[in-house]
């Protein structure tokens, strides 16, 4: 039977995470990082490593704590609530997980402890011109030359590409009938010659995106993660986990918006009474609460399904992603509206969540896409 309430350990993790982030990642920090050309703080990263977050889901033999995926999502909720800037999901789930599940023993031993200790920050580069997460979108080529592969082309929408040590790059190594076939994952050291990383200037500055151009970059074959030509399934699995983790972030962020809005509605007066006594404001808050409750149910189901390797995990994640994405957006819409003028200013924090909601919704397929995936499953 599925367990929905948190275990004692998870409750502790949650409390600790909230305290940590309130101290280490207040909105002043978030706003500083928004202006920063790298977009996240190595200092904070190290602290996160010290409290064990970066190795949370890795086995102990690789410097991790061996906790499960559901535990991780408890953390992600708090990160979403705090709008933590930086490639946490990228490093742990999108690069770390493929190494753990598909890497060689040498690769695991070399990279995972570094990730866990905070010395290796990573991101993933998959999307190209069309902006869609699907195998057809991967057109950047990698050509074998001796023991190396030469990567040539441009990736887009790469999170925090500027400040990371490694980028896991999905490249096309052969052309086959099935678009999934012929995609290989290369772990690329960002200090290599020929990598150019201009910013993309996106709406959500709390999670910066970059363009990454590879100008005949040489990568040793030993840096291939997983099998040659067979990278897509590894990526898909990592994306599934990341999508579920993103749902947790969204629920956490949405709950901040609800709490902040309810508090404002209690304090702000108009026509001599708190605006929270107007029925229309009340009902909007009630709807925000309700939508978030249902988002939480689906998100927790998705997290449990992944933890348990449930055969319904794909369906659960698609349902959660589309519902949480829609909810986060509408909760932020209401949040801005109820705050009125002040909620529309740059100085108030509401718009940071508003924008995070929208960047999270488009990441790894928006609500529309995930509903279409579900439909295709019963076509």
């Amino acid at each position, binding site marked *: *039977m599925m367990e929905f309430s948190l275990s004692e350990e998870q409750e502790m993790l949650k409390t600790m995470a909230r305290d940590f982030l309130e101290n280490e990642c207040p909105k002043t920090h978030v706003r500083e990082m928004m202006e920063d050309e790298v977009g996240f703080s190595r200092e904070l990263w190290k602290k996160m490593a010290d409290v064990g977050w970066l190795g949370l889901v890795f086995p102990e033999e690789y410097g991790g704590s061996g906790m499960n995926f559901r535990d991780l999502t408890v953390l992600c909720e708090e990160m979403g609530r705090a709008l933590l800037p930086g490639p946490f999901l990228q490093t742990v789930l999108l690069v770390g997980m493929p190494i753990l599940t598909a890497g060689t023993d040498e690769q695991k031993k070399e990279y995972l402890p570094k990730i866990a200790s905070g010395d290796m920050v990573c991101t993933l580069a998959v999307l190209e011109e069309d902006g869609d997460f699907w195998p057809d979108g991967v057109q950047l080529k990698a050509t074998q030359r001796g023991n190396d592969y030469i990567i040539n082309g441009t990736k887009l929408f790469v999170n925090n590409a500027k400040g990371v040590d490694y980028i896991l790059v999905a490249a096309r190594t052969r052309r086959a009938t099935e678009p999934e076939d012929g995609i290989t994952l290369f772990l690329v050291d960002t200090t290599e010659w020929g990598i150019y990383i201009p910013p993309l200037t996106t709406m959500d500055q709390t999670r910066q995106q970059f363009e990454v151009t590879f100008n005949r970059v040489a990568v040793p074959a030993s840096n291939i993660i997983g099998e040659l030509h067979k990278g897509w399934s590894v990526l898909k699995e990592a994306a599934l986990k990341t999508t579920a983790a993103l749902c947790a972030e969204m629920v956490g962020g949405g709950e901040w918006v609800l709490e902040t809005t309810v508090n404002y509605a209690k304090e702000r007066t108009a026509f001599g009474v708190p605006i929270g006594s107007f029925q229309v404001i009340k009902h909007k808050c009630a709807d925000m*609460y*309700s939508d978030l409750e249902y*988002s939480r*149910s*689906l998100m927790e189901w998705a997290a449990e399904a992944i933890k348990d390797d449930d055969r319904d995990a794909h*369906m659960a994640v698609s*349902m959660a992603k*589309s519902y949480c994405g829609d909810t986060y957006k509408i909760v932020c819409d209401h949040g801005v509206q109820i705050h009125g003028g002040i909620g529309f200013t740059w100085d108030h924090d509401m718009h940071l969540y508003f924008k995070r909601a929208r960047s999270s919704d488009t990441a790894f397929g928006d609500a529309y896409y995930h509903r279409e995936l579900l*439909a295709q499953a019963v076509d």
Partner: protein
Amino acid sequence: MTSENLEALRREVRGWLRENLPKGWGTPEYVPPIRYSRESHELGREWTKKMYDVGYTGFNYPKEYGGIERPREEVAVIYEEMGRTGTPGGPLSLGLLVAAPAILVHGEEWQKKRFIPKILSGEESWCEGFSEPDAGSDLANVQTTAVRDGDEWVVNGQKVWTSMWEFADWGLLVAKTEPDAPRHRNLSYFLFDTSTPGFSRRPLVQMSGEAEFGEMFFDDMRVPHKNMMDEQGRGWYVAMTALMAERSFGGTGFSGGMAAMGGLGTSDLLGANALVELAKNTKRYGKSVWEESAFRQRIMQTAIELEAMRWSGTRMAAKMMKGTPIGNEASVLKNFQAEMRQRRGDLTCEILGAYSQMVRGSTRAVDEGDHVYNMLRARGATIEMGTSEINRNIIAERILGLPR
């Protein structure tokens, strides 16, 4: 509890079901009785009694009030096996839903002992007199009066929107006993026998043409004083308990409510399968509706909402099992379920196009007119058991703490 024991129980239940389910159950040859008919009521009554006698229902109540005390794991196995085959529902009664929970909290010891066992066993059916023509969701407007006369109370007035009204043996009734007392202190609750002289009932026809609800009339009906529940003037609090119990059913719907009633149907993971099939089988202007992304999206949204309800219901049920009262959370579930039913009803009719006009009894009706009935019936879902507006007030004020 060893797993061998549980496996034995599983085999026992399975065998019992094979033995006791109605003939033809689960095959097309089984013809269920007409909804709300006496036949359907009797089937539910007998089925409940059978289950109760063998210890497969009546959980969550203390033994002294007729409850069946079984370990949680056993209950889970029983529910699982019944879920696999599906079973007939219970009798047409608010007994398990409203009367038993209210009596358990507010009843005198003799009331608990007298009434709860026969509710659990399905032997006695219940209804509740709550809404009145001029009251709606506002208890302050209750016009039905009960005047003390010796050891009896004399009741006069009218109740509307009474569900499960037709075959109820007993009724719960809220009436004004202290006309001059302030709001929240002027009402009392009674348990009354529907065979009492002065009591009458008749159907109340709803917009779909069916009479799912009834009206009840009290004309100098006499109720013994000992049938009052809780203290005189505390009727408002009893009403709240009853309402809350009812709303949590309206909200948890299948997963929570039906489980609480001891009946479980089969469920498919993608709960919108019926809509998918309908869309695949319906052509509009020569094109399959299922191929239109506008419909695919909405159908999948329905599937998602159904799953969200299922998991929210599960979270709620887990809370209840641990003994945490669900209280105001019931308003969240109730509203979502009611509004989802309306959205689904509208969507179904949009898929059907011109055929959405065909009602029950029409030779050209798709699904025997149930689609249209469900759409119409769903309009009542946001009104009954507390309007959506009232429930949103509750969420805002009691959960979020916004000022009244």
